[in-house]
């Protein structure tokens, strides 16, 4: 079975099928959308069950030559870094599809179709083994998101859409130039033109080339993440997009940037990554502090969660860029944690916004009185978000901070501020909406109470959080080999003591 190709073909077919559903037939549209997302989830579960945890390279690879004379191929596979991202994508999109189907906007079939197309883009991106294919899916994902913001967004949707598109495109087109340059330079070393990431592993680029190419890639990743100061599109896009889309963007699209860093940036250009280690780490640290401060003062719940995401992604980037085994582990784990938690947080924002009619924290209060179950769920999510010991995110942040401390203690000290602020802003959000005198609602908040449909989305997310918190090894065990392999060349480039360098890693110059 070509599992990997199925993974992108199933949602694509469902998206196309949705386009043929007559406009009025919303029930059929819902069914196709949800079934499409669930089938994709099944495929991804099939992939997880067949995944071999001991292997660090790409597995279950589907390879077809596409345009040989210019070096393009269709090459999909999974490894430890992508396996949980794939599963998380299919899970979150299934839940997102439920959420969207419950309150389908005007022209709902097209909405669901675009959601599925963005899933195609993300899944393709997380499994692409060819740089051009990586780029293809990178761009493919942008179009449905842009359409979703531009068509179904708030009052300023057009500006939000344009800002989002222009920011992203600047990064991605520079990345395209970097991709072509990489293959052109590597051609002399390898002997033929290829964009396969596995072939490009270990090509010794000169240190200037390595730095420039790394910078070319990182610009695209930094914008997508976003890393401070490339986050200009974030407030507009997050606050204008329909909330389901915002949740998926924050949970998954942001991971595209981190994933690119770990899949392409650091392993292919270890020297360049090492040169730019400190600058990027500083940007990540600024992002942690700045994002936390913005979240603290954010007027709406949606922006608060959005800015907190900026801070959390700073942590993840830091975890990757210090080239420490433990920190990188934590970063990979935290990618999943953050995705699940931020999706849950946006779900709560959605529920409150729907019941209370506003997402403005100053105009809401005391909702816990009429909506106790919501309050419980909210508290769990808030605790997870601020990385309370015992929560899933605690494991990830602990790994990251521990690893960072091993390498650069001062960075860990600054990053600690982010952990403290997280408690401040998350509790502020909880308190101002849930506690205190009842505000903003006439029925003491009963309209905000969890309904069966909301529970269907929140309960699985909370269960996943508990599962990871109790048994992180289930995840880490699968990611170890691949993560080691990704950072080993950079560790060597950074002249780390031999004891720290992962034994299974590839050395520069050798072909895996």
């Amino acid at each position, binding site marked *: 079975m070509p599992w990997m190709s199925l993974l992108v073909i199933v949602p694509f077919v469902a998206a196309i099928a949705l386009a043929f559903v007559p*406009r009025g037939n919303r029930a059929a549209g819902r069914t196709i959308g949800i079934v499409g997302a669930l089938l994709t989830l099944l495929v991804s579960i099939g992939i997880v069950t067949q995944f071999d945890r001991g292997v660090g390279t790409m597995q279950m690879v589907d390879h077809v030559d596409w345009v040989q004379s210019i070096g393009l191929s269709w090459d999909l596979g999974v490894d430890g870094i992508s396996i949980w991202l794939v599963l998380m994508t299919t899970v979150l999109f299934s839940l997102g599809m439920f959420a969207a189907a419950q309150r389908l906007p005007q*022209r709902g079939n097209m909405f669901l179709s675009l959601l599925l197309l963005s899933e195609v883009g993300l899944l393709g991106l997380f499994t692409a083994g060819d740089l051009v294919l990586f780029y293809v899916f990178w761009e493919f994902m942008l179009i449905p998101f842009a359409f979703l913001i531009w068509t179904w967004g708030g009052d300023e949707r057009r500006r939000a859409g344009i800002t989002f*598109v222009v920011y992203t495109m600047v990064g991605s087109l*520079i990345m395209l130039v970097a991709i072509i340059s990489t293959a052109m330079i590597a051609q002399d070393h390898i002997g033929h033109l290829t964009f396969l990431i596995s072939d490009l592993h270990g090509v010794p680029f000169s240190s200037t080339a390595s730095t420039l190419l790394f910078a070319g890639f990182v610009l695209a990743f930094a914008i997508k993440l976003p890393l401070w100061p490339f986050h200009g599109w974030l407030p507009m896009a997050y606050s204008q997009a329909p909330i389901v889309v915002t949740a998926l963007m924050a949970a998954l699209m942001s991971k595209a940037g981190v994933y690119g860093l770990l899949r392409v940036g650091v392993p292919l250009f270890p020297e360049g990554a090492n040169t730019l280690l400190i600058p990027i780490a500083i940007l990540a640290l600024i992002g942690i502090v700045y994002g936390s401060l913005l979240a603290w003062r954010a007027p709406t719940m949606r922006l608060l969660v959005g800015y907190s995401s900026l801070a959390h992604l700073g942590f993840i980037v830091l975890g990757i860029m210090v080239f420490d085994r433990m920190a990188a582990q934590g970063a990979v784990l935290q990618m999943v944690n953050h995705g699940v938690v931020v999706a849950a947080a946006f779900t709560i924002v959605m529920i409150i916004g729907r019941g209370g009619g506003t997402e403005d924290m100053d105009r809401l209060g005391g909702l816990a009185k009429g909506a106790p179950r919501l309050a419980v769920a909210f508290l769990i999510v808030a605790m997870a978000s601020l990385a309370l010991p015992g929560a899933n995110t605690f494991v990830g942040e602990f790994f990251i901070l521990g690893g960072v401390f091993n390498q650069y203690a001062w960075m860990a000290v600054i990053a600690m501020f982010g952990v403290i602020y997280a408690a401040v802003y998350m509790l502020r959000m909880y308190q101002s909406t849930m506690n205190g005198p009842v505000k903003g609602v006439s029925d003491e908040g009963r309209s905000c109470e969890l309904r069966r449909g909301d529970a269907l989305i929140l309960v699985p997310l909370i269960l996943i959080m508990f599962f990871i918190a109790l048994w992180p090894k289930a995840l880490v065990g699968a990611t170890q080999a691949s993560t080691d392999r990704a950072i080993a060349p950079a560790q060597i480039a950074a002249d780390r003591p031999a004891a720290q360098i992962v034994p299974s890693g590839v050395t520069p110059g050798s072909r895996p």
Partner: protein
Amino acid sequence: MNYIVGTPLYIMSAVTLLAILTGAFHLKGAARRLPEWLGIGGIVATLVVATGLWGDSQYGFAGEIHMSRMGILLTWIIMISTLAVIALSWGEPAGAGRRPEYIGLILAAATGMMLTVTAGDLIVLFIGIELLSVSLYILCAIEVVRERSLESGLKYLITGAIGTALLIYGFALLYGMTGTTSLEAIATKLAHAGPLTSQPLLIASMALVAVALGFKASAVPFHMWTPDVYEGAPTPVTAFMSTGTKTAAMGAFLIVFTGAAQGLVSDWRVLIGAIATASMVVGNIGALMQNSVKRMLAWSSVAQAGYLLIGVAVGTEYGARAVAYYLIAYITMTLAAFAIVILREREVENGDQIEAFTGYGRRRPWAGVVMTLAMLSLAGFPPLAGFIGKFMLFQAAIDGDMLWIAIVGALASVVSVVYYLRVSIVMWSPAPAGEFDGGRRLRVPGPVAGVAVIGGVGIVLLAVLAQPVIDLCQGAAQSLIP
């Protein structure tokens, strides 16, 4: 003397004359379509004959015609866009009552374009460019009752005449320096010309030719006529200018620069590179502020000329290959886009305004899909034909040590995304209430819809099955560089 090589030329000239001659008779009923059918028959015959000639380069007459693989490939592109333009003109109001002249002039222009791309001699090249230009001056102004159309023709005539003057001057200088008008002989002479800095006349001739061809290709800074002329001309003629003329002009660029002046590539690549850069930047920024899709496509065609010129500027086989592929992709997406504009224009007044397309995709989903594909492909979104084309152009630039132009091209594309995406999103936005109630209920003209659908399918297929197409382009590029 090889006269067989001229067969495509004989066929096209004959059907041109016959099509015009039908105007002398009062044709009734189905026979009124005679000029169209003559044209279609001639084009199909030309395509078949040209395919038969595919192979090693052949020279016709005393070397005046050079049937290289590149010439044949470009002839195909030109013939297919001519065919599409005839289909787009089906029932075109601008051609009503004077169909023989209208179709005849399109065929004459196509003949000129073909002559341009198969020229083996400066004089033939010049005649080809003149034939296509003069025919198009008239075609732009063919709707004599409409002021905009007249204005368009006049503007094109005046700027075009300047271009012609510069071209003949450049050719004269080139002849003066090399003593021959044969492109093959010029190539040999220039290969041993030595450093260009000591030969100001050669520099002047190269610059003049580049400028003159830049006029025809609507490259910056010789693009000023483009938006007005494109907007004023009947839309099928606009489509013809942005596909056929562009192909012919790019063909001329390839023949003169990449081919004949190959020996001086390091000298002229800066010049062409500068024109390309300016075109990409100015074209894309100009297109941002347009409210008419026709004007937007005019500016976009300026920008596209810039992308194409990247492939000329590098002056390598990769570059020529990329230009050839991008031309195929470009005519496919441009014709598809114009087909939808023509459809809309026939339904409502001011149908070329972007607002007129609000919600159009919901009314005619297939048209919406085609337009969206065309716009995304023009913007270079993967996995569509425009992406593969841009990819190859950037690849050629980086391979030819012109990384900077690839970066400029990439950044310029960012700007283009805004206006292309705007059209495709507007197509699917909710239409204002009652918008479509009053509009004419148009029975979609089959040929126009055919062009749109074939174009839409082509945009996808050219990317998915790119390999054989690129092989053809590769063969063509090899025939260009001695």
